[in-house]
């Protein structure tokens, strides 16, 4: 009747997770902290993807941003300064069935844990890593960070930071096996959501730098890029297509093919603007946790057989009667 299938049924999932299911403790971040915005986007992503909270793990390091797992309704591992990545890798190798996210601050990722960051890119494991980059050490009260702009006055550099900052995107894009690099700012929630969604669906290590204000210590550090005109919105059919609203606000745009590594590197080096969106994406990079995945479960019989096989290589059965002669 009227073209309507009378047998239609709506398949409803048994459980529907709401935003509340992903919330836990009330965040203790400062009012206006960019971490709040990241938390909201991530919770929205979890809800929209209907990630079972018990099958989702957030692993973090140490610092303001690393309190993140405590505020999620999922499993979490608030680990050690700089060591979030290797812990997350261990979780993932043991449990490919889990969705594993990593939250790191700029101190975590770009200073004390730099070796792990470099190698995490190389391992290219199925993880989503968020670099909460506020360009300052916040929790320890305003010390210079490797990403702090040169000249920034901090408690350890009273006359201004001596060195030029490290460029997290350039570094990441310079490492072999890089497979997903994106950048967003926490004051662009819609774009952040879109980027996180792509990062989540990417097969391999998704590295997302989130430029994040620290209202307490570096409220003005991003002044030059806060204006919508300062952002360079990356658009592509193989990357992201933003909404009309976004395109109206962020007028400075570039058609950037995310498979173009050289152009991605050029964009990462830009200092006159903040390129946001997907810089690089390549699904054809080998994924370490898939390469190393055990093909089948090991039964007691298999374990026993393997041991027996090894034992047989080193077995010595004494010849009765002791010493013989030629």
């Amino acid at each position, binding site marked *: 009747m009227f073209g309507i299938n009378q047998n239609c049924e709506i398949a409803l999932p048994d459980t529907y997770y709401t935003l509340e299911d992903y919330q*836990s403790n009330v965040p203790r971040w400062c009012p206006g902290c960019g971490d709040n915005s990241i938390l909201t986007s991530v919770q929205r992503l979890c809800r929209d993807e209907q990630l079972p909270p*018990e099958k989702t793990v957030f692993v973090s390091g140490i610092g303001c941003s690393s309190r993140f797992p405590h505020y999620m309704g999922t499993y*979490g591992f608030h680990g050690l300064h700089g060591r979030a990545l*290797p812990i997350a890798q261990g979780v993932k190798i*043991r449990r490919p069935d889990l969705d594993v996210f990593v939250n790191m601050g700029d101190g975590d990722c770009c200073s004390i844990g730099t*070796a792990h960051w470099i190698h995490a890119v190389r391992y290219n494991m199925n993880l989503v890593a968020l670099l909460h980059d506020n360009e300052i050490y916040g929790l320890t009260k305003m010390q210079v960070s490797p990403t702090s702009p040169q000249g920034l006055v901090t408690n350890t550099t009273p006359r201004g930071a001596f060195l030029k900052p490290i460029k997290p995107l350039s570094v990441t894009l310079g490492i072999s096996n890089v497979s997903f690099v994106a950048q967003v700012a926490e004051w662009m929630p819609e774009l952040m959501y879109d980027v996180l969604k792509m990062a989540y669906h990417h097969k391999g290590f998704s590295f997302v730098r989130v430029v994040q204000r620290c209202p307490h210590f570096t409220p003005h550090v991003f002044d030059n890029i806060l204006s919508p005109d300062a952002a360079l919105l990356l658009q592509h059919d193989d990357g992201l297509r933003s909404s009309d609203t976004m395109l109206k606000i962020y007028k400075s745009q570039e058609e950037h093919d995310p498979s173009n590594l050289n152009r991605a590197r050029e964009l990462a080096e830009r200092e006159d603007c903040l390129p946001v969106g997907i810089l690089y994406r390549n699904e054809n990079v080998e994924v370490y946790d898939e390469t190393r995945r055990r093909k089948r479960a090991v039964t007691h019989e298999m*374990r026993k057989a393997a041991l027996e096989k090894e034992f047989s290589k*080193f077995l010595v059965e004494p010849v009765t009667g002791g010493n013989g002669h030629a």
Partner: protein
Amino acid sequence: MDKVETLEEVSSALTGEKKKIVLKEHIVEIVSDAGEGAQKAGQAFGAISARSGNGIWTVEIIPAEIQPPPRSKAGGSGNRIRVGSFYVTNAGDEADLVVAFNEQALLGRFESDNLKPNAIILLENKWREHADPEIKKLYRDTMEELKNTKLRIYEVPMERECLKIVDNAQRGKNMWALGMLCSVYSRDMEAARNEIRLTFAKKGEKVIKPNIDLLEAGYDWAEKNLDFKFEIPSAGITKPQIVVNGNQAIALGVVASGMDVCAMYPITPATSASHFLSEIFENVGGVVHQAEDEIAAAAFAVGASYAGKCAVTITSGPGMSLKTEVLGLASMAEIPLVIVDVQRGGPSTGLPTKVEQGDLLMSVFHTHGDAPKIVMAPATIEDCFYAPITARKIAETFRMPVYVLSDANLATGQQPFTKPEFKEEWVAPPFDQSPVPKGKAPYDWDEETGLSKRIIPGQPNGMHTVTGLAHSNMSKVAYEPKTNQDGCDSRSKKLAAFQKTLQTPKVYGKESGDVLLVGWGSTKGVIEEAVDAANEKGYAVSSLHLKYLQPMASGIKEILQNYKKVITIEINYSDDRKYQIFDENNRRYANLAWLLRARYLIDVDNWSNVYGQPMKPHSILDMLNEHFAK
């Protein structure tokens, strides 16, 4: 057959016509330049001896470099095999017989006091007529010098004899030397041929045939040209034995324990355990992850343990220093973890290939604040196999890091042990992934024992965030003073609960007396051999060996009190009282002595050194002689 037991008697018996001398034991060394195959020959000789029912202990002689300069004193590579007509528990004293492929490697062993003064030397003599005048002169000068020693040197034309069979004597001289040893020690040649077939099984008949020919040629030459022959009767060992070194035993133990994630970073002398494990995992399934550094290796293992079954990380002392923060986290967050530390000489980079037991205090106390963990130490190669199985079980039951302290002695030492029979209970049952009752505390600490059941990702309703921050039983960050105290209490209770399960170790020897020697780790066999020798001399000496160092079993204080003096025997540093500056106000003790003094308030003394050498039974006896002479 004359029965001769001391070397002095052997020497006198050697004069005159060739007799077969029956020995209780002999220590044989084969040394060459790296790559000349002395290690292979040594291993084969050990295996043939074990097949003949002898007790054996073999140790590798390893230069620090991969390809050290040839003909150098420090570059000697090879094997030391102690063969006995009894169950051999350690590498023993100095060598009785040495096969040396050049005189410099021989000098290296001689000058480092590894040979008996009147040891028999079978030395390659091609250098005497070497084309290079310098080499020729050096060889002849060395021979002149050695005439002033008591060494009994036989110059053997090894290469010349080998060239009768093969074109390149460099490859194959080792098997010729093996044949010579088979004659000297009256070995069953069929067993020797079988050993060669086994060694070269992968390479096929083309390689097996010439090697057997060389073996037989070496045998025949020795039969004709050497004026002595020994026999070491069987120790009566009849059960099938496994001959592996300590690192291989650890790898086998890891497989047997069901642990299937090992994260590591290369470090001497631990790495060969991971090599072997990687190989086995290719067959049985498992991951050896070579991480970017020691910290990452530990963190990777902790991540894997957190999400399910217990994982293992294998390292040595410098790696332990680096892993400290992660081990503190594992203790704090109550994540099971097995850490194997194959100890080497320290501090800092120290003596990478040499033995030391210097990591005990670090293992018990390292990390800031109070982070309880369990420390155990295998004493034999067999223990190395069972240690990971036990450690895994303890780690999961008590939600705690468990340290297994092996050392370079065990790592490269080989001692046959009865072939283990795999038991299913060695492997953890699959993790229960069922839903958790709502509101269940992730650290539901038992009031008495501090124990709680672990909740892992995947379990519905169990969601929580583990943290290295002080936390409540709900794993919530502590903002009240009492929370941290409660957490620390609960974690320490687990250690006490584990301690209640330990059995009092048994004394070796009489239950009271003048001196009790206390040891731990790889020195058990040496200490007990020294105790036997001391008792034969009429001293009232016993020994106690500790396998659990943290916590220690009950009843140890009572044992220590039964002796007039307690001395720990350790291969680690302690202040030597011969220096006047050391007195009771500043004296620093050996690792175990510190622990025993602190816990039992007994005036425990220590005898220790850091020469990086395996301890010799007679050196302990010398110390006791001195003690009783006072």
